[in-house]
């Protein structure tokens, strides 16, 4: 019979019994660690060359309709900016709202207000009550000669992210509104939005505008409406004098705006003489180290997926949005108060005019990129291959475990299988896999949904209770496999490990598409624990205890603590007390968990859910596996699957011999001269 006429299963079987396959399998099983190490090294090099000038590309405008910077910008109204800023200074929120209301009405816009209140599931330490309420105010400038089909949102919150008053941001927006009202070339409505209570106010307004409803936020419906939102620009100025304009692009869940939007903002700031920065103050012709630092900081801000500004919430709905933040205070006060504000106002005028030129939503440029600096970008085509190389060792390890579990079939070519041409079936330990999945995802489910259960019964819970509860669940999950001490066969644990590694690869690949920096962090944290865990019995007791302790130290809660410690340490003064730093990092970790939980319920971030139901279960699988005990060493006789298991698979006596582990297994455990065994 010609080979190509055979059915596929038979062709596979003939390949699996071929010499070529045996050599390749032997090589893989013997050298997995080295190949893996080599691939990791290659991946690291791949990542580190990304910010280089010859790999990253220079940013360019992809949408010709933008015509950025073509029109002259003439905004120069320092008088109004100063007047409004003086009027708003030191006012509390309700007084400020009435001042803004008066200003907007004077300009001639339609003015509306919206009340909202939000119940935080986890009360943060600084707050007195768990309910936060506030008021948003917004004015609509209707396009003079166009129908209300599209809108551009110009937003300025009452407080910047750091908590300082955004008086000059609001003043700039109001004087821009005054200036824009005199122009007749608007093809889209301009909505000037002033929100309170940070992201909560923006979320409340956005939900009411888009017709969504987040549980936990109660907001009155909007009386004034405009068309579909094309772009959102958020302005935050701590003080009128600033050194840089920080362009904050990251959105919730790692979603980024169109790169054209970022380029428009950067270009117009440049043209107006304002230096731009992305989380780091180097933007014009940075060196390689600065680019690398810039890229890492960009990734670090994007990885948690928590909102970094009011614009972040709009990105969840695929509305391009960006925040411009004035940072840095000039040491010497020279010139007028508004010497930085007016150029920024002109830049805003140019940006809004550019977007006014658009007829369609931005669709040309990239949505997946990394920004080492203002004018260079790394596209998805470049940063995905190193990540793929990073995942490859996991796949190879999974393959190795599968092959070793099926070693006898590979080793004994003279043993024909019962049905001609089909490979021997190995009984898969379904019950064990199911138990593994149940324990891991069950504990993850508890971590994820128990706080919600507690909230519904108790109304809200404080931070300490939440953290205590989560740690309890973690502790119980860790102790259960340890105390139960399951026994496992050699081939069974190998198949479980293979399954776990494949699940990890799938999860990381999925995250790579959703939030790439997060995927990289998870890959760094989870690869090694999942690769090197094995049940007790294979190595000495000492080594096994050591590996278990290191596994505990590399669990997700500990990683959260490490990242927070790193952050606090990098920010603290060199002479700071170590105890203080540790306490600070623990507090930060706790607050971070609470913020993630609140963001999940109020703002739509899936970080908490992902950590509980994707990351924690995979670590639990590795932990459970390491808590298993090998029931017999592979070198012993009678260590194969039981008779009943075999008969349930329809295999007879003849096959049992083949399936029993023989001492030929030593070949793959590193003993010399393998070729003599495989030459048959």
């Amino acid at each position, binding site marked *: 019979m010609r080979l190509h006429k055979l059915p596929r299963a038979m062709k596979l079987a003939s390949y699996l019994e071929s010499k070529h396959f045996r050599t390749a399998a032997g090589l893989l099983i013997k050298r997995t660690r080295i190949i893996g190490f080599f691939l990791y090294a290659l991946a690291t090099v791949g990542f580190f060359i990304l910010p280089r000038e010859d790999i990253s590309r220079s940013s360019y405008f992809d949408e010709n*309709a933008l015509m950025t910077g*073509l*029109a*002259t910008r003439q905004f120069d109204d320092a008088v109004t900016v100063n007047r409004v800023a003086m009027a708003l200074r030191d006012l509390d929120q309700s007084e400020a709202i009435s001042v803004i209301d008066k200003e907007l009405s004077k300009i001639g816009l339609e003015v509306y207000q919206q009340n909202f209140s939000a119940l935080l599931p986890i009360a943060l330490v600084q707050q007195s009550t768990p309910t936060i309420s506030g008021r948003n105010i917004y004015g609509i400038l209707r396009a003079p*000669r166009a129908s209300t089909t599209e809108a551009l949102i110009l937003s300025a919150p009452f407080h910047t992210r750091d908590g300082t008053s955004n008086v000059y941001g609001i003043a700039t927006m109001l004087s821009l509104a005054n200036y824009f009202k005199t122009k007749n070339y608007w*093809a889209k409505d301009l909505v000037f939005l002033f929100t309170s209570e940070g992201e909560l106010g923006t979320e409340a307004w956005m939900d009411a505008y888009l017709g969504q409803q987040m549980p936990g936020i109660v907001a009155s419906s909007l009386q004034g409406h405009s068309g579909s939102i094309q772009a959102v620009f958020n302005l935050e100025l701590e003080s009128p004098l600033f050194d840089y304009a920080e362009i904050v692009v990251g959105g919730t869940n790692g979603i980024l705006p169109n790169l054209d939007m970022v380029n428009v903002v950067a270009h117009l700031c440049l043209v107006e003489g304002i230096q731009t920065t992305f989380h780091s103050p180097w933007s014009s012709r940075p060196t390689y180290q600065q680019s690398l630092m810039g890229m890492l900081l960009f990734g670090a801000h994007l990885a948690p997926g928590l909102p970094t500004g009011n614009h972040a919430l709009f990105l969840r709905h695929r509305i391009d949005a960006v925040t411009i933040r004035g940072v840095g205070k000039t040491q010497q006060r020279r010139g007028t108060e508004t010497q930085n504000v007016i150029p920024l106002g002109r830049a805003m005028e140019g940006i809004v005019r550019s977007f006014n*030129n658009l007829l369609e939503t931005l669709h040309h440029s990239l949505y997946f990129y990394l920004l080492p600096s203002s004018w260079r970008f790394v596209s998805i085509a470049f940063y995905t291959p190193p990540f793929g190389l990073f995942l490859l060792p996991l796949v190879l390890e999974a393959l190795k475990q599968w092959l070793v579990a099926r070693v006898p079939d590979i080793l004994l070519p003279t043993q024909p299988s019962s049905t001609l041409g089909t490979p021997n079936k190995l009984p898969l330990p379904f019950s064990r896999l199911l138990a593994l999945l149940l324990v891991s995802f069950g504990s993850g489910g508890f971590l994820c949904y128990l706080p919600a259960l507690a909230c519904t019964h108790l109304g809200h819970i404080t931070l300490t209770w939440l953290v205590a509860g989560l740690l309890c669940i973690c502790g119980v999950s860790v102790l259960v496999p340890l105390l139960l001490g399951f026994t496992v066969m050699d081939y069974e644990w190998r198949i479980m490990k293979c399954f776990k590694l494949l699940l990890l690869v799938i999860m990381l690949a999925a995250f790579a598409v959703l939030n790439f920096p997060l995927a990289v962090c998870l890959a760094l944290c989870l690869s090694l624990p999942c690769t090197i865990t094995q049940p007790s019995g294979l190595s000495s007791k000492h080594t096994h205890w050591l590996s278990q302790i290191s596994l505990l130290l590399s669990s997700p809660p500990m990683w959260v603590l490490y990242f927070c410690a790193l952050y606090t340490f990098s920010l603290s003064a060199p002479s700071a007390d170590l105890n203080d730093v540790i306490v600070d990092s623990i507090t930060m970790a706790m607050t971070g968990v609470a913020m993630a939980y609140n963001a999940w319920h109020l703002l739509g971030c899936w970080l908490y859910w992902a950590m509980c139901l994707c990351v924690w279960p995979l670590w639990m699988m590795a932990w459970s596996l390491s808590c298993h005990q090998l029931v017999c060493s592979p070198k012993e006789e009678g260590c194969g699957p039981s008779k009943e298991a075999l008969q349930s698979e329809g295999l007879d006596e003849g096959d049992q011999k083949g399936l029993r582990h023989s001492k030929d297994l030593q070949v793959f455990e590193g003993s010399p001269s393998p070729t003599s065994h495989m030459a048959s």
Partner: protein
Amino acid sequence: MRLSCCALFIVSLWTVCKAVSSKSTHTNNWAVLVCSSRYWFNYRHVANTLSMYRSVKRLGIPDSNIILMLSDDMACNARNPRPATVFNNENKAINVYGDDVEVDYRGYEVTVENLIRVLTGRLDSSVPRSKRLLTDDRSNILIYMTGHGGNGFLKFQDSQEISNAELAAAFEQMWQKKRYNEILFLIDSCQAASMFKLFYSPNIIASSSSRVGEESLSHHPDTDIGVHIIDRWTYYALEFLEGVSPASQVTMENFASALPSDTPLLSGAIFSLPLLEKRMYDPPLL
């Protein structure tokens, strides 16, 4: 109408053909002016076409003999800070969208099908006379096209393309149906020379704003309106035409030499010599 007022359309051949061409054999003049783009950022294409329309009208071709195809979405665009106007220069000296502009095909009527039907005369009986090209074998036609183009095609309103083969076939149909005496084909777009590469009918002079592989660029932006306002080739062509009156005796050679070389045009304007004796040679003049 004085024959000399159409001196612009007199063919000027090199030494061999001079004797043949010095006598003009046409009795009427027509113009087909096509702007194939729409949308605000293509303001300059509409300005190009309207400027040519204005020059052609000023030099004596009446509206009844002009087919003007425009998307006509610039003057009343919500983004236009000067509503009801279209300018072709930053100095805003002339509003080319004045009081007496007759647009024959506007908006979504500017399609490839309509252009071919107009050229070949295959129009439904319900189409009015103002939208027909009622030429005979003694008509000289100016065909001016502008828009976004590529190698072998011109883009029509962001959804269609007309290829050079289609255009060549349309012109051959016109020749066979005796619908023209001579055609002056002017095209201002990127890689415009590719559009007349396949012409095989006689008595056509073609001029393009750029060679194959080159882009045609705009001349200058208007920083008040915020758009690019005119293209380079058309700008220099109009400069030449502003100096022409119905009484002047300018020839094609003058026109050709008036269009500047690669700088400041920034692209190579090509003239193809007419194919009177079925000879096809195409030396670039500039």
